[in-house]
């Protein structure tokens, strides 16, 4: 027993070194579970706070481009206004419906919230953004995030006033996407090489594709509304052995200066997931 104590005292530095290494590696490889349980709230609030001050400064440098983007989005929205469209049949008079609720049973599926990006990275192997909306404002995990240009990513972690978003430039990103023209569905992911493009896989070679074609979120993507622009085809990686295309996609969102985003909540997501899970249980 005495020898054990002597041994520990003699090699105390080494033992301490090993303990610290084990702690660090444990946190690293149990990232999600450990992170949530122990530090997430406090650390997110702190780094989000500093990030907010920093982005207050950098915001000024991007004012012009942000303005242009917003003006462009405004015109797009104006074009989509109902008052732009006329009815072909003018002989009929529209009668105001006096029933106060929608008799067709329409109800809301997607809910949008705006947010500002306070922290952003593009050069790391796994890139994330921090936005200034958190669980107090109703942002939860697994909500889609969209900028005025296109898809940004998915919320992976929230504190009370901030949320961390896994951007398209993250190795764990998997978003169901489809060709806008013909509707073939594939999966968008990132291989970590360059922040200038992402990869689209599982598109069958029967689909007609051309450079510059739009890729949008598919109707199977439960985090996003269908038809949101992800990017455009930049080039085709030829793989003769496969009957599927591997396409390089230029993301529509400019991740280098993204500043204002919207968080989309799919209010029926849980119901769909529950139904599918129950069905899977029966099938097994």
């Amino acid at each position, binding site marked *: 027993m005495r020898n054990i104590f002597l041994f520990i005292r003699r090699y105390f530095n080494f033992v301490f*070194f090993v303990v610290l290494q084990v702690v660090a590696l444990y946190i690293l490889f149990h990232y999600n579970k450990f992170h949530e349980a122990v530090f997430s709230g406090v650390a997110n609030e702190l780094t989000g706070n500093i990030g907010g001050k920093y982005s207050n400064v950098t915001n000024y440098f991007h004012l012009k481009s942000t303005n242009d983007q917003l003006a462009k989005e405004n015109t797009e929205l104006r074009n989509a206004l109902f008052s732009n469209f006329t009815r072909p049949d003018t002989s009929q008079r529209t009668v105001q419906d006096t029933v106060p609720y929608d008799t067709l049973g329409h109800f809301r599926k997607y809910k949008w919230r705006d947010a500002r990006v306070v922290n952003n990275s593009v050069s790391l192997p796994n890139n994330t953004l921090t936005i200034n909306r958190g669980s107090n404002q109703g942002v939860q995990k697994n909500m889609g995030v969209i900028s005025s240009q296109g898809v940004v990513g998915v919320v992976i972690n929230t504190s009370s006033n901030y949320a961390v978003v896994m951007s398209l430039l993250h190795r764990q990103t998997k978003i169901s996407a489809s060709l806008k023209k013909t509707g073939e569905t594939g999966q968008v992911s990132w291989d970590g090489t360059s922040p200038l493009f992402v990869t689209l896989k599982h598109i069958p070679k029967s689909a007609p594709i051309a450079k510059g074609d739009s890729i949008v979120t598919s109707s199977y993507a439960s985090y996003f509304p269908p038809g949101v622009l992800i990017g455009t085809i930049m080039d085709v990686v030829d793989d003769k052995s496969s009957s599927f295309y591997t396409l390089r996609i230029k993301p529509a969102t400019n991740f280098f200066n993204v500043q204002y985003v919207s968080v989309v909540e799919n209010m029926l997501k849980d119901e769909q997931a529950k139904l599918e899970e129950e069905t899977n249980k029966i099938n097994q």
Partner: protein
Amino acid sequence: MSDLVRNTVRFVLFILVQYYVLFQIRPLHEFVVPYIYYLYVLWLPFTMGRMSLMLVSFLFGLTLDYFTQTPGLHAAACVMIAYLRGFVVNILIPQEGAELNYKSPSPVSMGWAPYAVYVLVLTLVHHIYLVLLEWLQFGSFLFFLGKVLATSGISLMLVLITELLFFRKEKFRTNTA
């Protein structure tokens, strides 16, 4: 300025510069990632005990980790160089007791050549360990080798620039004064 204040200020500055300047630069290539923050560990005073050295480095790395959302990655690498720092200094210090005459490792206190070796060795160790941890999660051997070499090259250049820009005057301390 006392040692405590100086090192606290450095702690904050190194983190902010690393995250808000160097990590925000558009990457030239996936291999080239400019790192400077670990210089904080190399600049800590001689008189700190091994244990407190490792503890401070752990907290320092973990702080950066919370900015980059990779808890544990930089902390592990920082603890590694903090542990090995003592051995390297002992081998490179020119004569017995020289570490008592000066406060912290610098070109003045150790001489340019030994200091360069000290920085080179610890830089390589830091990057090899850091990229190895990344490599365990993805990538190929070529990725590992290329990233270690390219990243070490750019980091050494940054260290040289920092040493020249912020030249640290080290007073020779004797017990007679």
